[in-house]
């Protein structure tokens, strides 16, 4: 384990430590740097909340698709070509005028990667994780989302291998927009449930 001791003695700056770790793993034939490039590129350029926005827009214009999405979101999402890790078992939950859904992972950072990409820092932060379950309405107010007292708030704590995506309400005044125009309105935050979609 000579190498393990070597990389423990490099400076604690994470950038340098990662560089040392990568060199060591490549030298040992364990990791292929080209594979690392591909993995980074996937999340920087291919997988992200635009995928989820297309799913939501499709659900808004196609009631049969919405039913499939609510029945098995992983399968319905795969119809649009989005598959992969952290999306194998996905549940879609629908906002209505009477019900507002909010997604959190209090224990760490569970998030539906194929439809939303990697989670933003705030989603993984102690502030959000601790308070989303005990004070969801306060959290929502911090995001500028004000709910009426009689709306039902449902918080989904992703404690197992199920991943959640919120189908936000389609905003009024969007009747004449096509699917692509609708998708452009749908934000990551609306699909986590911290904001509503604005027309």
């Amino acid at each position, binding site marked *: 384990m000579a190498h393990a001791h070597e990389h423990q003695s490099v400076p604690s700056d994470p*950038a340098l430590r990662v560089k040392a770790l990568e060199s060591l793993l490549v030298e040992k*034939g364990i990791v292929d740097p080209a594979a690392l490039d591909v993995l980074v590129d996937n999340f*920087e350029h291919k997988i992200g909340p635009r995928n989820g926005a297309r799913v939501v827009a499709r659900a808004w214009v196609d009631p049969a698709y919405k039913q499939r999405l609510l029945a098995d979101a992983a399968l319905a999402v795969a119809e649009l070509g989005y598959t992969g890790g952290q999306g194998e078992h996905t549940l879609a939950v629908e906002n209505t005028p009477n019900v507002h859904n909010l997604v959190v992972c209090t224990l760490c950072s569970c998030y539906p990667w194929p439809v939303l990409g990697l989670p933003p820092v705030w989603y993984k932060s102690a502030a959000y994780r601790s308070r989303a379950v005990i004070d969801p309405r306060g959290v929502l107010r911090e*995001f500028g989302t004000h709910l009426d007292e009689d709306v039902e708030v449902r918080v989904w704590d992703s404690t197992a*291998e199920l991943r959640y995506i919120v189908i936000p309400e389609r905003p009024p005044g969007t009747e004449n927009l096509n699917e692509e125009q609708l998708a452009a309105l749908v934000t990551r935050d609306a699909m986590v449930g911290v904001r509503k979609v604005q027309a």
Partner: protein
Amino acid sequence: MNGIHDMGGMQDMGPIQYEENEPVFHERWEGRVYAINASLFALRKWNIDAWRYQIELLPPAGYLRMSYYERWLHINEQLLEKHGVLAGPAKATPSLTAAAAAGRLGRGLPSSHDPQVTPRFEAGQRVRARNINPIGHTRLPRYARGKAGTVARDHGVYAFPDTNAHFQGEKRQHVYSVRFSARELWGEQALPQDSVHLDLWDDYLERA
């Protein structure tokens, strides 16, 4: 383990820091850690539950001080050491090739459909989350222990984290979406119609 990671219901963690137009990775090294982590996971020396437990073993002060990807870096170094991955001669083929990475790895989890495993509960049933305090890994958060809720749906069969994390077998069993009223969890300060749903394994539940 009743660690710092189990923070649901804690207070005084400050306002939520929101960053407009946040990049996927803030620094190049974060992306490299993400990708190294995925490549090492593909070695199958450890499973997702063991990985999570390793994060939970970080001392609380360090856990809070480190950024998300610093934690990942730290535990990957520890897992490499723990599982002796760096021992021995260089490997001829890497754990993950560029082609496999491009193929997005397919579905990483086995199917949750398994008629061989009998569910102990069904939708509509009243249940109580058991009051357990294991020193090892668990996915039953403290804030739900001892609380009563209603099974909303059966998600099918999954490996049990409390044994899988310690390489004591998958002990596959049903996982349910359980609805807890916010008042049951937090008392009168919560509105009566609000709720929190948790996904809980059979072994975490008893009849209420």
